């Protein structure tokens, strides 16, 4: 109950007021829904009578023309770490809301346990309320639900497209960012909305960072040229210019200088030797070569106390791409980490292991045998319970070893199957990207996006059985097609992608690129915007 923390704060406030002899009326507004537990807590704390509760059933925040966020950053930890299914209902409600607005979704795909649960619950909601949507023509042709734990790798990589980089560097919150004095080149910070309205940003957001500066300077020259036009003008033209164009130009000018400032600031931080090496290491991890070298790089990273979150991220990336760390590294890296960043991170490691982000390789070939046993156990259990999804992670019975096995990432095999590491002959031209790999400098096609691409191409999971098995998701990959296809060809090009547990700007950029290539239009619905740092922070235990 993440909300409990805030709630308890407000309770303290009430009690403090009471002690001070102040009697006031309080109102607590809970969003996105009022949980029974909240009222219970209020009651237990003895302030129920002083406080009135309201619910603000707020589920979707449109951050951009193609991006809806549920603004539930706690979803990731609650579900993927604590196994708390509380938010699934909220997701189902959000889907329900969308389907009442835009008609039924004729083609549904999904992968992941949470995706399946949300989808099932949503279907139930639809059935219970004899919705008027039934007869409606669908406006959104496809919906794709994807669990974050299907692809941790992409989320753990350093982002190098502009929007992702801005997020990594300055943290975009609810579609806006605080540019500090070093960006605004004045003495105050500036809150800037980042979306398609910002014409400058809209043109560079999906670009690889190496192109951005060139683009911006070109833009600056153009702008100057437009300003310069006024020289030869007569009075009438000048009047026209001032009344119609000048405002736009000035606006653009302001934005341009902001983004140039942001770029400079990013360059200062990211173009140093360290960053290059970091990226190099990441690419090595993704491709699976020079593992030893990468491991010592990470070790050095930890020894030098570069950044607790970064170190953790690299460790996780190593673990997932390698199907877990070999026992020796697992121990030594953890020891080093504890020595550098504090012993309380023992808990962090326990969390990461539970979530399957940082695990130990089980020795030997027995792996596959055990794996089969586990998956059989899972299937048996699933078969005889209606709400099979809830039953699986039953504690005690399936031991931790098993469950961490079930979470084997198989990244290398998947990468090979889906061709995630493009074979490059010569230089990858980042200016004219040829595939989604451009969002990671041509080194890696984001797994999540590739899955979506493949399924959309096939209109089902057919032929992807092996990949699904490698993702440990045989139970939770589903396709659901409407029997009579009333969808217009226009709507069939519209695809709603739902990320459960958050998505990164890089993924959004990659899918936007895919959309342009294949003539789709993607709309994104995410529980929150995330990036590697946010994921790691969600898993970290910090001393209270």
């Amino acid at each position, binding site marked *: 109950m993440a909300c409990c923390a805030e709630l308890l704060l407000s309770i303290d406030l009430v009690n403090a007021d009471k002690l001070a002899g102040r009697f006031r009326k309080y109102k607590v507004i809970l969003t996105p829904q009022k*949980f029974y537990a909240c009222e219970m807590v209020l009651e237990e704390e003895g302030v129920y009578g002083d406080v009135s509760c309201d619910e603000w059933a707020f589920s979707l925040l449109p951050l951009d023309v193609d991006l809806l966020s549920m603004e539930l950053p706690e979803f990731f930890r609650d579900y993927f770490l604590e196994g708390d*299914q509380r938010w699934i209902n909220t997701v189902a409600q959000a889907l329900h809301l969308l389907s009442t607005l835009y008609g039924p979704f004729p083609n549904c795909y999904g992968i992941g346990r949470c995706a399946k649960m949300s989808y*099932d619950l949503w279907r139930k909601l639809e059935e219970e309320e004899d919705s008027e949507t039934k007869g409606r023509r669908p406006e959104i042709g496809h919906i794709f639900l994807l669990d974050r734990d299907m692809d941790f790798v992409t989320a753990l990589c350093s982002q190098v497209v502009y929007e992702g980089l801005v997020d990594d560097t300055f943290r975009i919150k609810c579609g806006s960012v605080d540019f500090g004095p070093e960006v605004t080149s004045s003495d105050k910070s500036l809150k800037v909305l980042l979306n398609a309205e910002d014409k400058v940003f809209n043109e560079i957001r999906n670009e690889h960072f190496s192109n951005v500066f060139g683009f911006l300077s070109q833009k600056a020259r153009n702008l100057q040229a437009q300003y310069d036009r006024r020289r030869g003008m007569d009075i009438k033209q000048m009047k026209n210019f001032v009344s119609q164009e000048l405002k736009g130009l000035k606006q653009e000018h302001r934005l341009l200088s902001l983004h140039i400032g942001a770029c400079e600031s990013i360059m200062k931080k990211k173009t140093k030797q360290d960053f290059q090496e970091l990226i190099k290491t990441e690419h090595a991890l993704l491709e699976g070569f020079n593992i030893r070298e990468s491991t010592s790089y990470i070790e050095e990273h930890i*020894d030098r106390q570069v950044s607790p979150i970064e170190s953790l991220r690299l460790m996780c990336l190593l673990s997932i791409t390698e199907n877990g760390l070999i026992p020796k590294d697992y121990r030594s890296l953890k*020891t080093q980490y*504890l020595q550098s960043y504090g012993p*309380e991170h023992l*808990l962090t490691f326990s969390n990461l292991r539970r979530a399957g982000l940082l695990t130990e390789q089980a020795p030997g070939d027995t792996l596959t045998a055990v794996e089969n046993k586990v998956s059989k156990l899972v299937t048996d259990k699933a078969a005889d319970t209606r709400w099979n999804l809830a039953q699986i992670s039953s504690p005690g019975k399936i031991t931790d070893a098993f469950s961490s096995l079930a979470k084997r990432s198989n990244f290398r095999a998947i990468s090979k199957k889906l061709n995630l590491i493009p074979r490059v002959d010569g230089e990858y031209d980042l200016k004219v990207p040829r595939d989604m790999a451009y969002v990671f400098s041509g080194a890696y096609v984001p797994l999540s996006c590739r899955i979506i691409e493949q399924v959309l191409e096939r209109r089902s999971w057919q032929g992807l059985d092996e990949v699904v098995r490698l993702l440990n998701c045989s139970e939770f990959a589903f396709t659901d097609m409407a029997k009579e296809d009333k969808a217009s060809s226009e709507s069939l090009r519209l695809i709603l992608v739902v990320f459960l547990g958050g998505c990164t700007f890089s993924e959004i950029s990659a899918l936007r690129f895919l959309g342009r290539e294949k003539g789709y239009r993607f709309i994104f619905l995410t529980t929150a915007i995330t990036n590697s740092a946010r994921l790691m922070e969600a898993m970290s235990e910090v001393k209270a």
Partner: protein
Amino acid sequence: MDCYTANWNPLGDSAFYRKYELYSMDWDLKEELKDCLVAAAPYGGPIALLRNCWRKEKAASMRPVLEIYSASGMPLASLLWKSGPVVALGWSAEEELLCVQEDGAVLVYGLHGDFRRHFSMGNEVLQNRVLDARIFHTEFGSGVAILTGAYRFTLSANVGDLKLRRMPEVPGLQSAPSCWTTLCHDRVTHILLAVGPDLYLLDHATCSTVTPAGLAPGVSSFLQMAVSFTYRYLALFTDTGYIWMGTASLKEKLCEFNCNIRAPPKQMVWCSRPRSKEKAVVVAWERRLMVVGNAPESIQFVLDEDSYLVPELDGVRIFSRSTHEFLHEVPVASEEIFKIASMAPGALLLEAQKEYEKESQKADEYLREIQELGQLVQAVQQCIEAAGHEHQPDMQKSLLRAASFGKCFLDRFPPDSFVRMCQDLRVLNAIRDYHIGIPLTYSQYKQLTIQVLLDRLVLRRLYPLAIQICEYLRLPEVQGVSRILAHWACYKVQQKDVSDEDVARAINQKLGDTPGVSYSDIAARAYGCGRTELAIKLLEYEPRSGEQVPLLLKMKRSKLALSKAIESGDTDLVFTVLLHLKNELNRGDFFMTLRNQPMALSLYRQFCKHQELDTLKDLYNQDDNHQELGSFHIRASYASEERIEGRVASLQTAADAFYKAKNEFAAKATEDQMRLLRLQRRLEDELGGHFLDLSLHDTVTTLILGGHNKRAEQLARDFRIPDKRLWWLKLAALANLEDWEELEKFSKSKKSPIGYLPFVEICMKQHNKYEAKKYASRVSPEQKVKALLLVGDVAQAADVAIEHRNETELSLVLSHCTGATDGATADKIQRARAQAQKK
């Protein structure tokens, strides 16, 4: 037609009053009406009778019987009265019978004599007993007003939401008022009472004397008072046989009348209707009934037997042992049509239609006459309206036929008023049937609304009729048929003689998947009747599992509730059940239940993490989940323990748990942490400064920064800090201190495990080029170029790169060549490149 107006009695110049029979009553009354407490509900409601055996001096030996009849005299209930003496009976707006006892307790019974609940009118009433009581109706619901033995009034304006209000005292009141009534004005209830020649008005706070405007002199006492149905008018009957009629505020007189009868009347009620022409009061004595209005003459009726008056919205019902009659002012439309020699368009149309049926040409004449005056529309409307006010179906029919006939000659007469009247009359005739016995007039029906009427039918368990009406009026299912079926089902579950199986099946057969029917509501009712098994069976039909949960909880089927809640996917619901379970089961059982429901378990764990840490521990304990138990104690050592000893103890428990979990790594790490904590504590004691809770790395760094190098090295040895880390650490710390001498010494202490490039880097970071250069020479060949570039020695870097013949290094150097100063170097590199290519 002449005979039709035979029962019309003129009052004054303009109005007629008529009295007609609703039902001939064949109720088998055991007592005389006058010996009974009588209560009849308005809107054609039921009649309750209770022999008033307490009024006599001696208490009667036999217990009286409370009887409830429909308005047509059909028995609805009969029960032996076993409670205390009753002072007054009255019906609430929901047709519940309120019986006010002498001790101030009010017992509430249903229409069928089923006891519902009881409430008390307060201690004061209990002590002083009830002298008199009234049940009255306001827009809030039904109220009870009580006059106590201490001559004080207590009232509650709404028995559904009981708030007792004690009215102020009347100064100097020594005896009971001769008469009193409740008034409602501006949503506030007042009491008007008469004591001798004085009238007092009580509101919540004050008691004021009032005088009716234009009251004739010589009044020494008021014998009776009556307030109209809508609380707008008031009538007073004095000991001089004089009747004052005016507004309820007493500020305006309507009229007065002297009937010259000094005997106190048995009952006095208003007989008026909305927009009535001549408001009148009906006064009843033993054998005489008088209608009095603003006219020199009154209308008089002889009463053959004991009668009782029931005021209605638009008239007065009068029932006795053998008949039930309705007395009212003839409505305008009827008057226009039926008045002798009326030339109103409606009258002509009715005549025309009759002639038409006789195939007489007169029909055409009459019609022409109406049309010439252009009054055909009006005529049709009049006939439709008059039909509504007729009690006899024959007369309704002929009026409607006339309307329909007239309609034929109209081009564009909207049909809905006619159709609706036909429908309404069918409904009205159906409920007026003596089997049903709800004698509503058209106006009452409109005031009551169809929804309320349906409720009343349901209340009388007349489900088939109610459903027929719904279907006939094509009411939407959710408001109509489904709702009634649900009520039926709720009644059905109370039939104890039918087996659970049969009831459940019968209900499901009839209800099926009718929209708007909530099986959980029906099940709740079944449970209310003590039929838990039936309730569970019924719940099975409930498609929404979430709906089943609250009832299951109530029935203490919490485990079933839990699985249903989980099935619904609504975590909030699951949580509700969990907290129930927690209170209901003992801890062991509760945990066992959780164990089988992982989803619930994880929810509960989340809750415990924030609210009940100890429970969380127990949960892990029960599962032998030593790993989590260890984590729990680790967390505790940071969050809840303050003292070092406590923290160390906590860590020790954690370490033990980790050993049990076979997680040696964590156990060892925890033990190290214990050691570190103790050590940090000692350091703080001995050296001062802040050490606690620093990481090992930071502890050593702090020691070095504080100049405690020996201690630092000791610590590094004790905790087996790897060489590499120690070098990085020392390097950073010494550079931070800018202790270049010590740094150099350190660098020479042995061969650096991290190379010398970091030395160069860190010196440059501190802007000490001089020191940096010292180390640059010691950097290993493969990093040399980098080091030289770092210290800004481009030329030498170029030399080394050329020597290495390394293309990447060459371009790296080239990229560092800036403008004029390094021009020569750049050339040199280009040349070297060219040479390399030649080869």
